[in-house]
């Protein structure tokens, strides 16, 4: 039984580390900042979960489980926020390769808002009418 659990722990830890490796490879191979944010947010959440599951089995103690759950929950809460903040700021810079996008339904909105005077009403934009698939 102990041997089985140890093997399970090893598998979980290695899979978890593999996910972090994938995140690293994604950061290197993706073309621009926005696609890189996908690599930075998705695989390592699963990697964390696998490593934590491995740790929980390895330590064989009930008291560490709340800490691990808490750490993972924090990861779930903070990873999307950081991706959003970096993406939102980066969209307005040259690091987002906007010319490679297939469609860009945010561009019009940003342009309208930034060309409007600083005070007064915000121009009304119907998001359905932007993009190449407008009907």
């Amino acid at each position, binding site marked *: 039984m102990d041997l089985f659990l140890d093997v399970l722990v090893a598998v979980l830890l290695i899979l978890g580390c593999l*996910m972090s490796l*994938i*995140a690293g*490879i*994604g950061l290197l*191979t*993706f*073309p621009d900042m*926005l*696609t890189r*944010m*996908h*690599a930075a*947010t*998705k*695989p390592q*959440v*699963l*990697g964390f*979960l696998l490593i934590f599951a491995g740790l929980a089995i390895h330590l064989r103690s009930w*008291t*560490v489980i*709340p*800490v691990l*759950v*808490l750490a993972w929950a924090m990861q*779930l*809460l903070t*990873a*999307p926020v950081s*991706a*959003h903040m970096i*993406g*939102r700021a980066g*969209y307005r810079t040259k690091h987002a390769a906007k010319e*490679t*996008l*297939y*469609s*860009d*339904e*945010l*561009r019009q*909105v*940003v342009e309208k808002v930034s060309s409007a005077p600083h*005070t*007064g*009403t*915000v121009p*009304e934009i119907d*998001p*359905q009418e*932007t*993009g*190449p*698939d407008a009907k």
Partner: protein
Amino acid sequence: MPNKNLAPRDQRIDDALDTAGVRHRATLKQEWPLLLLLVFVWGALWQDFSPGNLIFGAVIALVIVNLFPLPPVVLSGRLNLWYCVKLFGWFLGQVVAASVHVAWLAVVRGKKTRSSVIAVPLRTDSDLIVMTVGHVLTLIPGSFVLDVDRSSSTLYLHYIDVDSAREVEKARENIRDIERRLIMAIGSQDEYEAIKNECSPRVRRTKEKP
């Protein structure tokens, strides 16, 4: 927020100053689930869930929320545990799928990956649902939130690996499916009824066919 074209909605002005310039504070009735969460954090960090430690944690939680007040998080007052469990199971599966998807794109496609920025107008007008939809869709395959238009509950997403009009529509449908699942689990009673009475996307598609 100079949104003069749009009628303000009740919840949206709750956390800002109202017309009289009074800031609304959360009541204990609104806040107790969050206080419970803080007590759990305290117990987890001490690795000690004995009653004395928890009571001390509760005292500290109360002091903190009164010293550093934040805008109230308006919970809907409805929670369906069965749909929550279903949502969580589905979510875990999607997280695994997301990792595989990104791994495949990173290794095979690399620099050739093409993507889109799409606007998804949501049906809900609850901040909590918009926020949770944003979180869930960032962690599952394909998308993350670039920008939010709060007054119309529109999310602007970066959607990876989308390069045709059909796929854009499919992506939009996926997001609205996440919204449906979340409303089933934690949405308010009104929104739950509205979602239940709405045709599911699959039904609508078969209807449109001649």
